[in-house]
Structure formats: structure tokens, C-alpha cells
């Protein structure tokens, strides 16, 4: 009640129209189904004057229930899943209708290419997801609304309604632990913990209306939408050919899929030996890359620590901090570059990094040394000051003694 009063006051004082529609006048649907109107009035449809009869048929101008649902009024009642998808598509696939809202109109066409659509339209399987399973029905809100089930932050949970149902998924021979794995993945943590809406979620890889699982060859294209450089360097690697022959699943072979973790150099120890024998040339090459990456990480950390400590000691390290950024860029650039699996290219970048890191170290140590010399110089300074004070003190005593010996004149 209090929150309603607050919202009403806010609407009155802000002077702007509030985000729910007024009940349509003379609409007999609303007169009887007031509870459903309550659900619908905040929806994106009711705000655009799209009421019950647009989906359910019937004549809302009639005053009795019988006349409103009479034959000839197009009354549908509760549409089945196929009807529902087509009803939504009647407007959402119509360019003339949707043009003014700036909403794309290929959803229905895409849906029909999806596994969901094929099952529904091809096999009449109504257990698959239709529009309302993801978007809701009476209370449909814009995708950009955080309350929408298809708002990026909510997509994984929405998909999990069905894809987390073990019984349902077993019918289709699909795993039901995708959401659980995703939650612990680097993507899931970024989405749920950091609220990073740009991170990959279900629809980013599988598509939304045209949802399909990417095949072996498409994996690289899917991940490569975001990981552009990794994709580029991978195509230069020795793995590119077996991938094109369908023998090797790009990205997934080493990183996994739903549960993908933050890529760590230790993957070279764990992933290579899945396909290559331990001690083989390929596994050794992986080991070499691992060593270079390890050295770069350690040297970068040591340079960072050195600069930080120097800064705490009061040394000006702005230039070194700038150089540190350059060194970091080199190390970061190694992440995509290592997908080329070229030890020569990685070593070349490492040498660049090492030069910068060594330069930082030399400069900080030189400054620290200068600071130490300043402190050491205090010793001769105070020896000099001491000598001068003692010398003047002796002179002062002598003068005083001489003066007292003379006594007052006149």
C-alpha cells in the first residue's frame, strides 16, 4: 500500500505519464477479467492499446459474455502453443506493423529454423519453448526492462526453467546441468556477480529465437564473436586444419563449454595431454609455451611489486608506471597470441616485455640508490656542521674569557 502511494505520488509530482495503461473504456473483457487486466496493464502491449481481443479474439464492445464470445467474433479463448506462436508472429513478423517500434521482424522465421520451432511445427511437440515460455504472456515487457525474463541478467534462469528439468531434457538426450555449470564459469560469474551485461549467456552462443546448439565447426565462429584475436591466431595454428576436417572442436577441446573457466596457463599441462601423448613433441611445445607465459607472469608481478614499493617509499614512479602499462600490454597480448601455438612469436613478444621490465627495474633501483645516497650524505653534512659548531663554540668561549678578563673600561 505504502509503495503504491509512493508510486502514485511520484507520478503526480514528476508530471509524466506513469508506465501502466489506463483500463480501456467499454471493454467487456476487462469488466469480467479484471484480475487478468491487473496482470496486463503494465505490459508493453496494453501501453500501445493492444488489448485482449488482439490475441484471444472476441468482441469487447458487446455487453454480455455470450455476445462477446459468439461465433463470428473470432473468439479463440486460450490459444494452443502453435496458435500462440502464430498469433505473436502475426504482428511481430509484419514489417508494416513493427516498423514504427524499431523492432526486428525475423523472430518467427528464425524460430522456425530453431530446434524449438522445428519440434513444434514439424513434430507438433508442444513441450518445447514458444514465445510465452520465455517472454511471458499477459505481462510481456520490453527486453531492455530488467524485469523481463529475457533481460540479459535473467536469460540463463529463463532457459533453465526447461533446460534444468532433468526429466524433460532426458527425452531429448540433452544435459540438464548447463545452468549449474554456467553459474560457476567465468561468464556466469561476470554476469551474476559483476552484473556485466555484455558477457556471453545462453543466447549469445546458441541464439535466441533461432536457438540451436553450435556444431563442431561453428564453435570457433560463436566464441570468435567476442574473442576475435584468439580466433584469428587459432586459424594460424597447427590445430586449424584438423578443426576444418571436423576432427577437433575449436575452443571447447581445451576450454570446455558451459563451465568455461578463466583461461590459465596450466591448461597446457592439462589439455595438451588429452590428445597428445605426454613427452611427445607437441606436448613439449605446450610445455615451452607454458614456461614462457609463467616467466612473463612472474616478471610482471615482480616489476609491479617493485614500482608499488618504490611509490610507498616516496619515489616518483610515474614514468615507471607508464612503462609498466606497456609491459602489461605485452603480457596481455600473449593471451590471444598463444592460440597460434607459435613459440617464436610468443618468445618475440616476451623479449619485448622483458626489455621493458628490465628497464623499469633498472630505473627504480637507480632512484632508490640515489635516495640512499642522499641519506648517507647526511653523515658528512653533520660531521661538517658539528666541526663548525665546535670550532665556533671554542672561539666563542675564548672571546668571552678574553672579554671578561679585560673588565669594563672607563
Amino acid at each position, binding site marked *: 500500500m505504502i509503495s503504491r502511494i509512493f508510486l502514485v505520488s511520484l507520478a503526480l509530482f514528476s508530471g509524466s505519464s506513469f508506465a501502466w495503461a489506463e483500463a480501456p473504456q467499454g471493454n467487456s473483457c476487462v469488466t469480467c477479467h479484471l484480475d487478468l487486466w491487473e496482470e496486463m496493464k503494465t505490459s508493453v502491449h496494453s501501453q500501445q492499446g493492444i488489448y485482449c481481443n488482439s490475441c484471444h479474439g472476441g468482441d469487447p464492445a458487446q455487453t454480455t459474455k455470450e455476445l462477446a464470445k459468439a461465433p463470428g467474433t473470432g473468439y479463440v479463448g486460450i490459444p494452443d502453443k502453435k496458435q500462440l506462436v502464430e498469433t505473436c508472429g502475426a504482428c511481430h513478423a509484419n514489417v508494416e506493423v513493427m516498423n514504427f517500434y524499431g523492432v526486428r521482424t525475423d523472430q518467427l522465421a528464425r524460430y522456425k529454423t530453431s530446434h524449438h520451432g522445428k519440434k513444434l511445427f514439424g513434430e507438433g511437440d508442444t513441450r518445447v519453448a514458444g514465445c510465452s515460455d520465455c517472454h511471458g504472456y499477459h505481462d510481456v515487457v520490453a527486453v531492455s526492462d530488467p524485469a523481463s525474463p529475457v533481460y540479459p541478467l535473467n536469460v540463463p534462469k529463463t532457459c533453465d526453467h526447461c533446460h534444468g528439468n532433468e526429466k524433460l531434457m532426458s527425452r531429448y538426450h540433452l544435459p540438464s546441468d548447463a545452468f549449474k555449470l554456467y553459474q560457476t564459469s567465468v561468464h556466469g560469474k561476470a554476469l551474476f556477480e559483476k552484473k556485466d551485461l555484455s558477457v556471453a549467456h545462453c543466447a549469445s552462443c546458441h541464439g535466441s529465437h533461432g536457438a540451436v546448439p553450435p556444431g563442431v565447426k561453428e564453435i570457433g565462429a560463436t566464441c570468435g564473436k567476442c574473442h576475435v584475436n584468439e580466433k584469428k591466431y587459432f586459424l594460424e595454428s597447427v590445430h586449424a586444419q584438423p578443426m576444418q576436417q571436423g576432427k577437433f572442436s575449436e575452443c571447447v577441446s581445451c576450454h570446455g563449454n558451459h563451465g568455461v573457466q578463466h583461461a590459465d596457463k596450466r591448461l597446457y599441462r592439462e589439455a595438451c595431454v588429452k590428445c597428445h601423448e605426454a613427452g611427445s613433441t607437441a606436448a613439449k611445445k605446450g610445455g615451452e609455451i607454458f614456461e614462457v607465459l609463467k616467466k612473463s607472469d612472474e616478471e610482471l608481478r615482480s616489476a609491479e611489486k617493485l614500482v608499488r614499493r618504490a611509490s610507498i617509499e616516496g619515489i616518483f614512479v610515474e614514468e615507471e608506471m607508464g612503462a609498466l602499462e606497456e609491459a602489461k600490454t605485452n603480457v596481455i597480448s600473449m593471451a590471444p597470441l598463444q592460440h597460434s601455438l607459435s613459440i617464436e612469436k610468443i618468445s618475440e613478444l616476451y623479449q619485448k616485455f622483458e626489455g621493458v621490465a628490465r628497464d623499469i627495474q633498472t630505473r627504480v633501483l637507480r632512484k632508490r640508490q640515489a635516495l640512499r645516497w642522499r641519506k648517507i650524505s*647526511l653523515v658528512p*653534512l653533520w660531521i661538517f656542521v658539528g666541526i663548525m659548531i665546535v670550532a*665556533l663554540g671554542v*672561539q666563542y668561549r675564548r*672571546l668571552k674569557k678574553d*672579554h671578561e678578563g679585560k*673588565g*669594563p*673600561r*672607563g
Partner: protein
Amino acid sequence: MVKDTLRRWLAERFDLEQIKGPLQAQIEKPLPKNVSWFHTFGSMSLFLFVSQVLTGILLLVYYRPTPGEAFESVKFIMTKATMGWLYRQIHAWGANLMVIIVFLHMLRTFVTGSYKKPRELTWVFGVMLFILTLVFGFTGYLLPWNQLAYWATTVGTEVAGAIPGAGEWIKTLLRGGESVSGETLSRFFVVHVIVLPWAVFFIVLFHLVLVRFQGIATLEPVGQEKKPKPGEGIPFFPHHVTKEGMVFYLLLGLLVTLAILAPFELGEKADPLQTPFAIKPEWYFLPMYQVIKYFPKLVGIFIVSLAPLFLFIWPFIDRSKERHPLKRPVAMTIGILVVLSLLVLGMMGYLSESKKTCPV
């Protein structure tokens, strides 16, 4: 050889015998016996002023008084210029020590009753020098154009703006506009490097002429002072100068040590859009800052402005003839209370708006 040639050259042009007499008299002028180590605070203040001028000239070689360059130029001095770090730190520490030493010099004058007739004007010039030393600090503090300096100046000029009537005008005059900006920096720079050094130079000159002309005060009551006879007291040269020489070396060592062991940090460049937490004025303004907090704005400013006024007129209020501190209980009680309240208020100002608490 060179000395003789120079003397001959001068003797051909000037009546050296006529000059030699008064000069000799000034050099050998005996100082009263009560002249102690505390009497070296005056020459220490002068030494610090000279040090500030010299290091200030060196800083001027590289310093650029514009918002875009001020911070970078000070950073350049501290990191690149040869020995720049040393003369910048000596300048910064010198400014702080000068406030302390000038204050101690005034305190010595107060305790020994030296401000009394006939030396009231010497005291008035001394108070002027103390105030100008504080203004030196206030204007110089802004010049590195870092965050603390920028916001402390904003608060300082805001206080001036609260003075009834002329406040707004004074604030605009100080800032050169609505807020602290390049105009303010330019004004503070000119005042700091041109106006104040010359003003202090001439006032120091008057102050010293009066000191030499009227002599150092003894502890005898007003009107009963006995001038030391020739051979009595301590000759200014070489006796007292030797003593001052020792103090000079001690101060030199102290300045360089502080510059090396406790350097002033430059901090971050001034950002008018980002107010740092707990902005406070420099330590020597903290007692005033704390007093202003206890009273409504106008009353606080009125009380704070009474302090310099009292300092100026003090010799004309305290008309008693006694100079010895033990024979002036009222004046000494007032003096002790003032010093204690400055210390307590300063400490409270320092601890306020911070997580530090007074140890119980």
C-alpha cells in the same frame, strides 16, 4: 696586497675615516648581559628569510604559474632539475620553520618585555613580519597546484568571503573570479614572489634599524635601563656573531636533514571537480580554523580577526614599567594561556575530521 689596493682605491674616493667611526661603533656596540641563546631567534628568522629568497630564485628558474604547467613544473623540479629536489624541500621546510622561529622570536620578546617603551614600533613591525610570514605561507601553498593546495585555498578564500560587507569583494579580489582558478594562481604568484619579498625586506630593514638604533632591551624597568658601557656587556662582533654562526650551522643541518628524511609530497594535481576528504588548512592556520567551527560564521571570523589586532596594540595596552617576566604575572598568565590555547586548538583542528583520536 689586494686588501691594501682596495683600501687605497676607496680612500681616494671616500673619507674612510669618517665612515669607519660609526661603522666600528655599530660593529662593536655592546649587547646587554641578558642576551641569551633565545636572542638568536631574530637572526635565525633572517637567515630563513634569506634561504627562502635564494631557494625561491632557484625555483623560479623552472616554475610556471599556470594551471596547466604549475604542477608539472614542480614535478620537474623535484625529479629532473639538478638538485631541484633539495632546494624545493628546503624551501618548503624553510617556510614551515620560519613560521615557528618568527613566532618564537615574538614569544621571547613578549616574555622579556622588550616590546615596552621605547620599542613599541619595533614590536609593531615585528607583528607585521609575523603576519606577512603567514601570508607568505598561504600564497605559496597554492603554487604547486595540487589537490590539497587547491581546496585549502578554496576554503581559505571562502572564509575571507564571509566577512560582512567587504567579504565578497575581498574573495573576488583574492580569487580573481568566482572560484579558485588560473587567475588566483597568477595573483598568488605575483604576491608571493614580488609583493611579499619586497614588503618583508623593507619592514625587516626598519625593524633592524630600530633594533640597532634603540639597542637590545635589558630586563630593567622602563625608564631605568642602563646602557652597557664600553667593555661591558657582550660585543656584537665578533662575540654575538660567533654565537649566531653556531645557530646558523645548526639550522642549515636541520633544514637539509628534514629535506632528506621528511620530504613534502607533491600529491595529486588539482582537480576542481573532485573534492578530497577532510580538507584542512596548513598547520599554522589550524587554531583559527578550529575557533571558526565553535561560533557562527561571522562571530568566528570576528574573534579570529581580533588576534592580530591585539598583537598590534598589546604594547599600548600593557603600560606597566616592569620587564622581568616574574614581575608581570598578569601578562605572563595571558601569554601562557594564549600559547596553550593555540596548541590545544591546533591539535584539535589536526585531529578533527580524521580517524585519529587523542591517546587517553
